[in-house]
């Protein structure tokens, strides 16, 4: 983990208002693990004030993709002034990046068939995890829900080995409805589940009937201040007491969240 100026290599649009920025910072590219995030300053001024936490989409340190090992990519949806500033980044610009931060996903040693469940930009850490899993020759299925066809993460951005199925809220692409309607048929197939998305999606996932032995890890999205564990802005209640998404998470065991 470090605070560094990363240089922008590319900043390309992949869906409606959704961009992927490629950054060069060798230590961060080497150290980041799937599920971890980086905390990007929006610009040199104090307005917008806070950094924005962005999950890492892929790193060149994982040889499954064609990125140089010193580069990594983050994805963002333009939703406000901070992310709008990111969309104006050009190759050669420098960005103040803190990271990598947070606890990553852990693939169990016995896992052979990994089920990934995403909602919206919650797909981001799952792409990084899918690449790491493909590298370990695991079978990977990625199910992801989006608002509509314009927001769908393109399949050509994923390793060919990954089975990718999508759902949209309005039925304009893939299955009509929530991603959780796709999940049940895979629950007996998979031996580990990792998920990231809005809390209602994660709660719906928790309510599905699943084998007791099937471990489910989730990555939480939360508004953050410092991302260093001090401001306590991102704290969520869990069965282990209040936990900081930035430092104790973002990856938690689904069963620790106390949702029913």
């Amino acid at each position, binding site marked *: *983990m470090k605070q560094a100026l990363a240089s922008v290599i590319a900043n390309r649009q992949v869906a409606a208002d959704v961009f992927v920025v490629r950054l060069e910072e060798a230590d961060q590219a080497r150290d980041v693990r799937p599920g971890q995030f980086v905390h990007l300053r929006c610009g040199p001024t104090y307005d917008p*004030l*806070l950094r924005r936490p962005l999950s890492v989409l892929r790193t060149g340190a994982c040889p499954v993709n064609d990125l140089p090992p010193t580069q990594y990519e983050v994805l963002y949806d333009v939703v406000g002034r901070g992310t709008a500033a990111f969309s104006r980044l050009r190759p050669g610009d420098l960005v103040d990046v803190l990271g990598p931060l947070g606890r990553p996903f852990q693939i169990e040693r016995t896992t052979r068939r990994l089920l990934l469940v995403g909602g919206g930009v919650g797909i981001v850490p799952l792409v990084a995890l899918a690449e790491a899993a493909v590298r370990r020759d695991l079978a990977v299925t990625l199910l992801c829900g989006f608002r509509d066809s314009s927001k769908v993460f393109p399949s050509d951005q994923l390793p060919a080995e990954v089975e990718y199925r999508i759902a949209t809220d309005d039925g304009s692409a893939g299955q009509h409805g929530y991603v959780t309607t796709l999940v049940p048929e895979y629950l007996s197939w998979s031996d580990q589940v990792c998920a990231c998305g809005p809390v209602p999606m994660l709660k719906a996932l928790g309510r599905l009937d699943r084998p007791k032995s099937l471990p489910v890890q989730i990555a939480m999205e939360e508004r953050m201040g410092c991302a260093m564990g001090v401001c306590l802005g991102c*704290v969520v209640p869990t069965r282990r007491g209040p936990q900081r998404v930035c430092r104790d998470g973002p990856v938690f065991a689904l069963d620790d969240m106390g949702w029913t």
Partner: protein
Amino acid sequence: MDVSNLAVNCAPKHPNDLWLKNPVMTASGTFGYGTEYAKLVDVNRLGAIVSKAITLRARDGNAQPRIAETPSGMLNAIGLQNVGLNACVKEKAPIWASWDVPVIANVAGFSVDEYVRVVETLSATDGVAAIELNISCPNVASEGKSFGLTCEDAAMVTAAARSVCDVPLIVKLSPNVTDIVEIARAVVDAGADALSLINTIPGMVIDVRRRAPFLANVTGGLSGPAIRPIAVRIVWQVAQAVDVPLIGLGGITCADDALQFIMAGATAVQIGTSTFVNPRTALDVLEGIEAFLDAEGVGDVNELIGIAAKNDRPARER
């Protein structure tokens, strides 16, 4: 020229004094218990660290959302989440005792008795150099009205803390009052060795899509550069009225911001929200003050404390 003197005494009336090797501290709630930023910041270079607010019992804090970004600022309603007095004494204070940098324990409470119990224990704990009293908390005995709102309540809790506190006692004032100068006088008369100015300013954001308050707690405390001019004005006003050291805070991002507080009358400053944006802010401020003193030929930072009062016409007219 020789290196300028940066050392300041934040409690000259107290037998222990509170000498800091420089006037730059971190503000309560923005630097945790001092350990979290250790990878990014050499904490021993700081003048002092002020801990997260400690209460008698551990607290879980408020529901989400707890923070909201605002123009050049942020609102927070964390709800005083902290490990509680016992865990602080057992787990945090031993680490503080091993550091060169003095740690000032920030104390919060919901009754005078709670303040007294926490202050009494912490002031006798190795590793605690001073106490900073957060009197912006709701007083359960007074229908939840904050202790910091009236001279009587502020003086009462200060005097009670003073009577059990063996280390320097700093009282942090809320700006959310009609006349902060009156409160400052009352708190100093009740035994405060120094004042921290200012705590956050109550504020609110509405989520127009949900047509509802944005924060789960409805209101929160505004911090960041947005409040800096208010904080500088309050330091200026209080500096004319009391004779104890003032510690200025509110939206400091750089050395010039910090120097505004010092020239308004602050002996030291605290860096708060800006640490979230740039973890190195406190060290940047320190280095910037050193560079300013060097460039301006000022041999001692103490010469600048309150200097603007001696030049109280706008610079343009001179």
